[in-house]
Structure formats: structure tokens, C-alpha cells
């Protein structure tokens, strides 16, 4: 049997889009802890290649490293704007740090109705929404893997000064921040 980390690489390569740990565990018939460990191994093995692992919460995706963006840019259809409006950036920051959260939580922090901004972020694919498990009539929002790719990061902790912001913010918000 081939090494699990390579089998994960094969699946991620073919699938292209983000795959959850859960789904990998099902396809490869390995438990989630094994999948996580093998993914860490894959991440290391990719050093020195043009590819990198993008990892957020329970989702994994293969992507090209930022150094190659210029080369592949011409091949990628659908140009992505590099700019974020201030409202979008603020809402995104709140969701990235606090998500998954409901619209009203984002509204409370910003002191303004966020539905328009949320819609824009959803359309750009920088956040995703799910039905709220506590109230089916509302949605919960969280940052997507696309958000990390937009920033050119494999993991959110690679964002410079992330730890510092995390610490500062946790001083205001007593409950723990969302898993990333």
C-alpha cells in the first residue's frame, strides 16, 4: 500500500477544489487523525516543489506557491480583483477571527447592517455560509479557503502579526476565537 500522504496528494490533485478531512478519511479508509498527520507530512514533502498545501479548519487544497503566480496568471480565466473595500476588509477580518458567526454578530461589532457586504464577500468566494444549526432560518458565515489563497497563505497563522492580533482581540472577547 502506498504511503498515505501521497494518496492524499493524488486525491487533492485530481479533485482540485478543497476536500474535507472527513471526505478524505472516507475515500482513503483511514481515520481523521491519520489523515491529519499524513497531511502534515505532505505539507513538508511539498517544500521544494511549485505546489503547496492550503489548509483551513477541516478543508485542504493544493495550490501553486505565490512565486509562480505571475507565470500561471495568464492561464487562469476569471480575473480576481486584488482590492478589498474598507467595509469588506473589516467584515472579513471579523469573520476570519470570529467565524463561524451569524450576521447579527458581525452587525453588532460593526454597529451597522452587514448584509450588503456579506453578499459581496460571498460572491467573491472569500467567505462561505451554512445554515445555522441553532436557527435554520439564519446563516452562519466563515472565511473560506479562497480567502487564504487570496492572501497567498497556506494557513492563517502565516499571516504576519496574526498571533499579536489574536492576543489583543482576545482581551476584548472573553470566549475563545474560532478554530482555524
Amino acid at each position: 500500500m502506498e504511503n498515505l500522504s501521497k494518496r492524499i496528494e493524488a486525491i487533492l490533485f485530481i479533485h482540485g477544489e478543497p476536500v474535507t478531512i472527513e471526505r478524505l478519511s472516507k475515500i482513503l479508509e483511514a481515520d481523521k487523525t491519520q489523515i491529519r498527520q499524513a497531511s502534515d507530512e505532505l505539507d513538508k514533502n511539498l517544500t521544494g516543489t511549485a505546489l503547496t498545501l492550503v489548509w483551513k479548519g477541516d478543508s485542504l487544497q493544493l495550490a501553486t506557491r505565490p512565486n509562480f503566480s505571475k507565470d500561471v496568471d495568464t492561464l487562469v480565466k476569471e480575473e480576481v480583483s486584488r482590492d478589498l473595500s474598507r467595509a469588506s476588509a473589516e467584515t472579513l477580518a471579523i469573520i476570519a477571527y470570529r467565524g463561524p458567526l451569524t450576521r447579527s454578530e458581525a452587525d453588532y461589532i460593526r454597529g451597522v447592517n452587514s448584509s450588503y457586504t456579506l453578499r459581496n464577500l460571498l460572491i467573491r468566494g472569500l467567505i462561505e455560509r451554512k445554515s445555522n444549526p441553532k436557527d435554520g432560518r439564519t446563516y452562519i458565515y466563515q472565511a473560506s479557503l479562497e480567502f487564504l489563497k487570496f492572501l497567498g497563505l497556506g494557513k492563517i497563522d502565516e499571516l504576519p502579526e496574526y498571533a499579536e492580533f489574536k492576543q489583543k482581540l482576545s482581551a476584548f472577547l472573553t470566549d475563545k476565537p474560532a478554530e482555524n
Partner: protein
Amino acid sequence: MAYKVKTEKFEGPFDALLSLIEEKKLLINEVSLSKVYEDYLAHIKTITDISRAEAAAFLTVGATLILIKSRTLLPTLELTPEEEESIEELENRLKLLKEFRMFAKHIQEFGRRNTPLFSREAFSGFEFGFLPPEKIAPAVLRSLVSKIIDSIPKPDLLPEHTLAKVITIEEKTKELINRIQDQLSGPLKKVISAKDKVELIVGFLALLELIKQGFFEVEQKGLFGDVELKKAPL
């Protein structure tokens, strides 16, 4: 003083207040809040096309600012525990928003500077052939599109009562001048006889404006006494 606020579109009261504080490079506390109070009111006056809910949000924050301002004008003014709490909450929410705003700026700049990662299309290079879905028929497509059309966000209908209409501080000021001149002096409660909360707030704002301009003097009888207004000697 020329207000820059007139040209800028703020996203709600917190954004407005925080921007005003940051413009003056102040820390977030009661003192700075009482300093930006006038700019905030000036901003409220420029707002014309917002929903009633948004107007209410601006006013609620405005009301807390009034509390802060009146405490600086009347040091003996006793605040209820709820009022103290609302001041504290306002400060905390502004501080929190400030942190997120810094974090957002960081993300914004990082995103602009850094190059993105690209991924590949799902099953790139694979040919699956035609895989028709179950349960899809013209009638199903029809009903799906019909639901989508129904849920298309409607352009926000212009609110019937805009903030500009609700808050006419100038009008209220004129009315107050007349009333107080009639009575010459009187307890604050009676002078600001308002029909609803919004009007009460506006009344209070107008009164503070008059006090500031030197039209009136205030006097509080004892620690818990009514605040009395007197026409200032000209």
C-alpha cells in the same frame, strides 16, 4: 470649523464615531467622546438617505454621547446604573471595532502586496460523459428559477421618514427658546416635554446647544434635585 465629515460616508454610528476620534488622534475614553460629540451631531445632520433602523442606531449612540456630554456640563448629574453601563458599552465596542479595523487594514495591505495562490479546476483533464441528474425536469427548473427571482434582493425602498425629517435640531431649538422665554426658568423635565424617545433626545441636544451658546444657565437643586434652567443675563 469646517467639517470633513460632511463629505465622508460613514458606515453606521460606530464607524463615524471611531473615525472622528481617530482623526483627532485621541484615545477612546469619556473625555475624547465628549470632545467629538459636536462633530458627531454635525454628521448626523448631514445624513439624509438612511433607513429608520439606521437612524435609530445613530440616535442611540447620540443619546449616550449626550449623557457623557451632560456629565461634563453638569458634574453633579447622577446617572442610573443602566446609563453608566451604556457609556461603558459604547467605549468597549469602539475599542473592539478599532482592533478589528487595524486587523482589517493589515489584511487589506497584505492582500494587495502579496501574490495569490492558484488552484486547479476540479477533475481537470477528465471526461465524464453525460451524467444526467435525477429529478430534474423543466417544471423543476421553472420552480427553482421562480424561487430565485422571488429572493432577489429588492433595492432598499427609501425610508418614509428619513433622519433629516426626524431630527430637526434647529426647529426644536427655536421652539425651546420660545418656551423657555415664556417660562423664564423651569425644571428640565418640563421644558423638554417630548412625545417619544427620539424627540426627547433631540430636545436635549437642542438644549445643550443653547446652553453652549450661552442662552441659558443650568442649576441643579441638591444632588438629586431637578435641573433648573434660567435665561442667561444678556
